[in-house]
């Protein structure tokens, strides 16, 4: 019984679940790198939420008098070639990156889970759904995103649509593979024998059982989506070029790399730190949520 409940968290009652979460949290925060990552991401999230209160300047305000100035007390991270404050733009850029990263992941997780559950649970739907997703995965991901952006045109919403199309297949595949395993379990069989409908079984047993790998995967998808958004904007096929985003700033920054290194360096550093901490957190989550890694080194 003890073994069964540790394998299937859904069968636990609420009061039994709490110590598990605190165990996870403890396991996560025990590693200094993970704790620092969590702290950084929390900071980035707060900075994105309260950007207007944190930034000393309007990120789109052009001040030709202070063009291309290096970091100083007036402009912490310097100014760009049109006199805009780089620090303020980095903070506002984080807003776009995080918002797109998180919403892409959320929507892709919703659609992907649905497709994965249907595909894994109903064998008749498996073939058409999976072959379609295989076709979408035949494109290198950034290329598919570029292709969609080429026809939809530059805007944040279109980036969101393009990246949802790109990342939904990955999530659907993962959910399908866990569904295929769970479908065979005895508790699903017994649920069916007491007359539960497919919908109830899917929502109450199958989906929650595949939740931990899904959560881990989602952490990485947020990171990938943030990189992709930055790449699209860098290529001029992403968010509107006038909007402060890390990718747009890097594109502007490369043009004046010879004279003003800070223009490209700071948005790039913000991008790398965000993706790195997301990856570290995803790795730690995987170790904490995967029962197989317990007691393994």
């Amino acid at each position, binding site marked *: 019984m003890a073994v069964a409940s540790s394998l299937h968290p859904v069968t636990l009652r609420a009061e039994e679940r709490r110590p598990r979460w605190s165990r996870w949290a403890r396991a996560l925060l025990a590693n200094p790198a993970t704790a620092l990552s969590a702290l950084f991401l929390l900071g980035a999230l707060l900075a994105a939420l309260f950007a207007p209160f944190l930034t000393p300047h309007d990120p789109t305000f052009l001040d030709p008098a202070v063009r291309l100035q290096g970091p100083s007390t007036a402009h912490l991270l310097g100014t760009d070639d049109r006199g805009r404050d780089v620090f303020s733009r980095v903070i506002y850029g984080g807003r776009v990156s995080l918002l797109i990263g998180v919403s892409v992941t959320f929507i892709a997780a919703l659609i992907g889970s649905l497709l994965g559950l249907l595909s894994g649970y109903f064998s008749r739907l498996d073939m058409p759904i999976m072959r379609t997703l295989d076709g979408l995965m035949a*494109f290198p991901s*950034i*290329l598919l995103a570029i292709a969609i952006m080429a026809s939809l045109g530059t805007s944040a919403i279109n980036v969101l649509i393009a990246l949802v199309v790109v990342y939904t297949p990955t999530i659907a595949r993962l959910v399908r593979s866990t569904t295929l395993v769970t479908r065979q379990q005895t508790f699903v069989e017994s649920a069916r024998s007491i007359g539960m409908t497919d919908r109830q079984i899917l929502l109450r047993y199958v989906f929650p059982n595949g939740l931990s790998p899904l959560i881990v995967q989602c952490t990485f998808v947020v990171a990938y989506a943030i990189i992709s958004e930055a790449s699209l904007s860098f290529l001029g096929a992403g968010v509107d070029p006038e909007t402060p985003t890390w990718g747009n700033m890097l594109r502007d920054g490369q043009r004046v790399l010879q004279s003003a290194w800070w223009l490209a360096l700071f948005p790039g550093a913000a991008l790398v730190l965000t993706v790195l901490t997301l990856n570290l957190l995803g790795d730690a989550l995987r170790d904490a949520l995967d029962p197989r890694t317990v007691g393994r080194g």
Partner: protein
Amino acid sequence: MTAYILRRLALLIPVLLVVAVVVFALVHLTPGDPAAVILGDRATPEDIARLRTQLGLNEPLPVQFVHWFGNILRLDFGESIFLGEPVTSALRDRVAPTLQLTLYALTFQILIGIPAGVISAVRYNSPVDRALSMVAISGSAIPTFFLGILLILIFAVRLRWLPAGGYVPLEDGVAAHVKSMLLPAFALGFSAAGLLARMVRSSMLDVLREDYVRTAFAKGLPHQLVIIRHALRNALIPALTVLGVSVGALLGGAVVTETVFTIPGMGRLIVQSIARRDYPIIQGAIIAIAMTYVLVNLLVDVLYVYIDPRVRLGSD
């Protein structure tokens, strides 16, 4: 084996069809009349009508698709709207830099990724392992284009050792060619090396626990011989799948890297064509790259079965 290859080839048909539908849809997803969008604001109604005929936009959609798909199968991607030449010839001129960049990046990926993974696994849990793992995870966190910009900043702007961009064909001198491709290939390969290193590390760790490795050590074989001949050879099998997926990431990454380093390859052509709304070029280039990726993965899968007999026995 033949049955396996035939089955894999059969699986390609639906993939091809989805790829074709997606690429075909690109033109029709544009808001408004594609012909008007392509020609821009200053186009006369006559121009638009002529382009509609040229692109076959007056036919019903299914007819257009069948017609277009038939052309694609004969490798006819139509005429470029901006360059005034067939898409196939425009692509042919730009294939070499992209393939070279991808190949060199793959070389960097293998040369960095495999040794790093092996050393990490052999020195499991040591400071060396932790340092290498940290570098690997940072490597995959640095987007290629930012690493490229950093490399330009250091090696071109500050040290002035290498050019900040541009492309020298192989025919114009090997040394100059290598100089022009060193930074872009490294930028592209390094990010991918992180993934490979992590994969090699974990599969090496699994293999090192195997009985036959313990036996090899126990009978007194030299340490390095066991690591390389007994362990690494088996550990590389799962790493092969990563390389297959990597080619896709490298081809996609090449699109971005070419823009950073102004390399006149297919990726830069795609990016330039977006601004020019040159859809036949975008469609042709994307199909070409997607097909290369699909074929490489097929090759990797077949190779995988060929190398690892356990897979063959399991699947047939």
